[in-house]
């Protein structure tokens, strides 16, 4: 056993002793990054000193570390080419400012383009004026951390995504800041990935966009003021928890848009002041637990056949509409939530209201049919018809009620 340890240490030492460091700067021996990369062997480190480097299509086809010191600038001069292309395993790229990739209507070009790569780390890079910041295709086991991406997108057709992942597995996207892109983070056919602690703001389409990506987890992210919030579509086994969805305003704007999502958990998220907190379309077997819905236009809106969803221990506070429902049939369970609109009593003082709460108001039914009637919101007449509907439900689904509404909001 001990011998084995010695051998291992020895092997490590050999590997270590092999690794060389190549310095790149304006007046070094090696003065271009391309040259530095060509000179480097697998396991070497290329240190790039501060300065502006006009580069494009640098292909990294061996396992090296490319490290920027004092944030050197890699300028793509708007040539419509990728700046860095990663084609090897075990690559680290860190500490650069990448800019001016250019705009293309036919190609997907990025600051860092990663293809068929494994075990890579991309950290502490800053992107500005890039079409896409990262494109990853068929990549595995990667870490994308502490990157800052800033765009000035105005038009969906003329802009790209912050992180664009296609057919990847086991990727971690952590602690990045993404602003002003088309989609902050876009995942398509991505599996077993974790997205956490990111801040995705002011993107013109979605803060996070998810397609055909099963078994992923995203948590502790902040999605704010995005054009259309966050969209999760056609995926299974998704874990979403401790995220913030705030200030996503507009006609097609959702805190969270769920379409054809099955068997997922949505827990402890905070939905604040969105036009629609969660829009649920054709989603089954999802548990919603411990979420906060504060001052949204619609806290939850069902738009398609949704079955066996369970809503427990959520707080619904001061939403214009807590729930909007488009059919008479209900197979979803609402139990033990706190509703700020609840006016019932609790005679036995066990913290649970003695009369059931009906979250669907007649007025929300009317607004569903005739959207213009929204102008009558908070009118005395509307209060009257809501009250009469509450007493004897005719238009709203009879079974849709919370039989154990909480008297006090849940505090964590």
């Amino acid at each position, binding site marked *: 056993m001990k011998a084995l340890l010695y051998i291992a240490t020895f092997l490590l030492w050999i590997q270590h002793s092999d690794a060389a460091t190549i310095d790149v700067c304006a007046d070094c021996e090696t003065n271009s990054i391309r040259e530095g990369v060509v000179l480097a062997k697998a396991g070497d480190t290329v240190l790039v000193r501060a300065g502006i480097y006009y580069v494009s299509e640098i292909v990294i086809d061996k396992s090296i570390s490319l490290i920027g010191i004092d944030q050197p600038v890699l300028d793509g001069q708007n040539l419509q080419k990728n700046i860095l292309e990663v084609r090897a395993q075990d690559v680290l790229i860190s500490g650069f400012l990448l800019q001016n990739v250019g705009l293309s209507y036919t190609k997907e070009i990025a600051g860092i383009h990663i293809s068929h790569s494994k075990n890579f780390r991309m950290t502490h890079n800053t992107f500005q004026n890039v079409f896409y910041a990262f494109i990853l295709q068929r990549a595995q086991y990667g870490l994308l951390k502490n990157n800052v991406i800033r765009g000035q997108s105005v038009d969906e057709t003329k802009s790209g995504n912050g992180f664009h992942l296609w057919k990847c597995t086991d990727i971690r996207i952590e602690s990045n800041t993404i602003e002003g892109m088309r989609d902050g983070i876009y995942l398509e056919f991505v599996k077993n990935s974790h997205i956490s602690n990111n801040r995705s703001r002011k993107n013109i389409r979605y803060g996070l966009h998810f397609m055909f990506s099963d078994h992923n987890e995203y948590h502790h992210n902040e999605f704010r003021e995005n054009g259309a919030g966050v969209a999760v579509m056609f995926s299974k086994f998704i874990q979403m928890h401790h995220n913030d969805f705030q200030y996503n*305003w*507009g*006609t*097609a*704007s959702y805190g969270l848009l769920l379409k054809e999502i099955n068997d997922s958990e949505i827990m402890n998220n905070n939905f604040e*002041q*969105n*036009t*629609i907190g969660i829009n649920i379309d054709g989603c089954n077997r999802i548990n919603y637990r411990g979420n906060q819905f504060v*001052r*949204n*236009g*619609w806290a939850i809106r069902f738009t398609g056949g949704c079955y066996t969803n369970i809503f427990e221990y959520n707080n619904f506070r*001061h939403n*214009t*509409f807590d729930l909007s429902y488009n059919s008479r049939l209900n197979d979803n369970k609402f139990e033990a939530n706190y509703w*700020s609109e609840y006016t019932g009593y609790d005679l036995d003082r066990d913290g649970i209201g003695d009369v059931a709460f009906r979250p669907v108001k007649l007025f929300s039914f*009317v607004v569903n*049919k*005739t*959207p*213009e*009637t*929204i*102008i*009558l*919101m*908070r*009118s*005395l*007449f*509307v*209060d*009257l018809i809501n009250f009469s509907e509450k007493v004897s439900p005719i238009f709203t689904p009879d079974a849709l009620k919370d039989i154990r509404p909480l008297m006090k909001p849940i505090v964590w």
Partner: protein
Amino acid sequence: MLKILKYSFFDLMRSRWSYIYFIFYLLMGFVLLFLNNDVDKAVITLLNIIIILTPLIGTVFGIMYYYTSKEFTELLLSQPLKRSTIFIGQYLGVAISLSLSLIIGLGIPFLIYGIARSSSIFNFTSLLIVGGFLTFIFVALSYNIALAFNDKIKGFGFAILLWLFMAVIYDGILMIVMMSFQEYPLDKFALGAVMFNPIDLSRILILLKLDISALLGYTGAVFQKFFGTGRGMLVSLSMLTLWVLLPLWNLTRIANKKDF
């Protein structure tokens, strides 16, 4: 006119009802804040009350004041005074004293609970502005009605009916019309219809503050422009001003012609 205004104002200030009205708002403010402890939520609750109550109180007060001070008015009419001066003076006396009761009555509890330091100070001030507008509008309307009917009971009935119509029936009719014509583009109609009802107008003003996230959910471009920009605020405020001025103009017109 100032003299008459002053007389009416102090006459009302001495009357019991102004105090009751003032104390009512004072108590309501305290109770709301005591129960909620959340200034923001208290403002929302208050909105529902103010939009219904200030028009009602304005109507009832206006009409009562006219009929009870009728003899004094007739005495004034025999003096060398312009008729418009007399009536506008009286009108302003009633409207200002009512608005003061509202603003001071609600202002005190909210100030004590720290509205000045909270973020809802703007919501609260717009609430008071709306309350003031509604008082001025409905006192003017009730004066119009009172001048049109010599019979006290008839005038009273009509005034209450007017309030009921504006507060409840109008919205009901609007909703039925919109639902039966839902195949047609209705956004212009909806906005236009709202302009003809001061209670709806002030409701919209407050909605712009409180429920903007829901209002922006509707897809019509007209709504978008109206709610999404400062235009909605501007249009509704100027419409409210018109709602004060038009009844006043009509008031002087009737007053000048009426045979007492």
